[in-house]
């Protein structure tokens, strides 16, 4: 388990609100906000742990941000933590999205509203790229040889962003290659 000196959620309430607040900042990518809030600011987990938990959350079925927060909650408070984290991820954003759906009909054509959404999406894109840049530093300590790691990251970017390959295919091929390379280096 985690060392006692390690910061973490102090209570289920703290966990619920921490997750709610980060969920509310996620426009198009809650995962990057999790890295920002829980790794950079609260230091509940390290960059390496974040990547490892994400790998599990990603290959499992279900929304990866929900899976990841559930795992973090479970790490600290067991099943109660898992349920609290899932509730925190969904409850307030759910109410908000229903409210937006109700307002949508009236304001969909307002240029200021669509402009604001466009501006927030651009900031989110910057956030997600910055998260990628920060995590790339962790590749140096990774058992996958650095040249291979950079090549896999670059190839997956091209496949997903430019060639629009299906995620499942990329996960199994390039992800599998990374696992194989790590397996050979570990003992």
């Amino acid at each position, binding site marked *: 388990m985690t060392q006692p000196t390690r910061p973490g959620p102090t209570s289920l309430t703290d966990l619920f609100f921490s997750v709610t607040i980060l969920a*509310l900042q996620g426009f*198009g990518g809650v*995962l990057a*906000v999790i890295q920002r809030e829980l790794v950079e600011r609260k230091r509940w987990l390290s960059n*390496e742990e974040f990547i*490892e*938990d994400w*790998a*599990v959350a*990603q290959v*499992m*079925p*279900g*929304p990866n941000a929900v*899976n990841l927060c*559930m795992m973090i909650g*479970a790490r600290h408070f067991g099943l109660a933590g898992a349920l609290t984290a*899932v509730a925190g991820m969904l409850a307030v*954003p759910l109410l*908000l*999205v*229903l409210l937006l*759906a109700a307002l*949508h*009909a009236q304001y969909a054509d307002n*240029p*200021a509203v669509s*402009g604001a*959404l*466009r*501006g*927030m*999406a*651009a*900031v*989110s*894109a*910057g*956030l997600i*790229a*910055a*998260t990628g*840049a920060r*995590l790339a530093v962790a*590749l140096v300590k*990774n*058992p*996958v040889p650095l040249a291979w790691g950079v090549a896999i*990251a670059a190839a*997956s*970017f091209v*496949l*997903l*962003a430019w060639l629009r390959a299906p995620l499942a295919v990329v*996960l199994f091929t*390039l*992800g599998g290659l*990374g*696992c194989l390379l790590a397996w050979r280096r*570990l003992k």
Partner: protein
Amino acid sequence: MSPHQIVLDLQDWLALFGHFLGLSLMSLGGAMSTSAEMHRYLVEQHGWLSQTQFNEAIALAQAAPGPNVLFVALMGWQVGLNAGSSVAAVCGVFVCLVGILLPSTIFTYQVAQWGHRNRELRAVRAFKQGMAPLVIGMLLATAWLLGSGGGGAGPKLWLLSVASGLVIWRTRIHLLWLLGAGAVLGAFGLV
């Protein structure tokens, strides 16, 4: 949204719930990966949602904060509204959202607990660490797709993305300040 009236009996509700339970374990990489199947079932096969309503559910959930899986809740809401009442709409939210989340969440919880207990196993460590390069590539691809806005992003919007990326990378400023700044710039038509 255009009026689109339907009748749902108990059996339909159970079928809807069962459909989302089944989709849950297939939703590798997120619920969005099964949206084509949802479309086939809800729009084409049963006509419980119109095409426009389906598209709007996805677009709204992506524009709103929070995990994208909430588009499923919006679909349930709209199916319930089409069935005639806001009670049915609330019912639809829970049927669809619980359906899409319950099996995958239980499964992931069990696997994560197993992985944590066996974290010293070579295979577990190789899997978790070997995925890191791909995770980074996926993040950069997501940023690219979101930033290019489906190909419609002009140079000023790109500049905003790059500038906020640099600020976030080099500082620990709270995200809400930047999101707010982006919203203001966008609302006044400056980007």
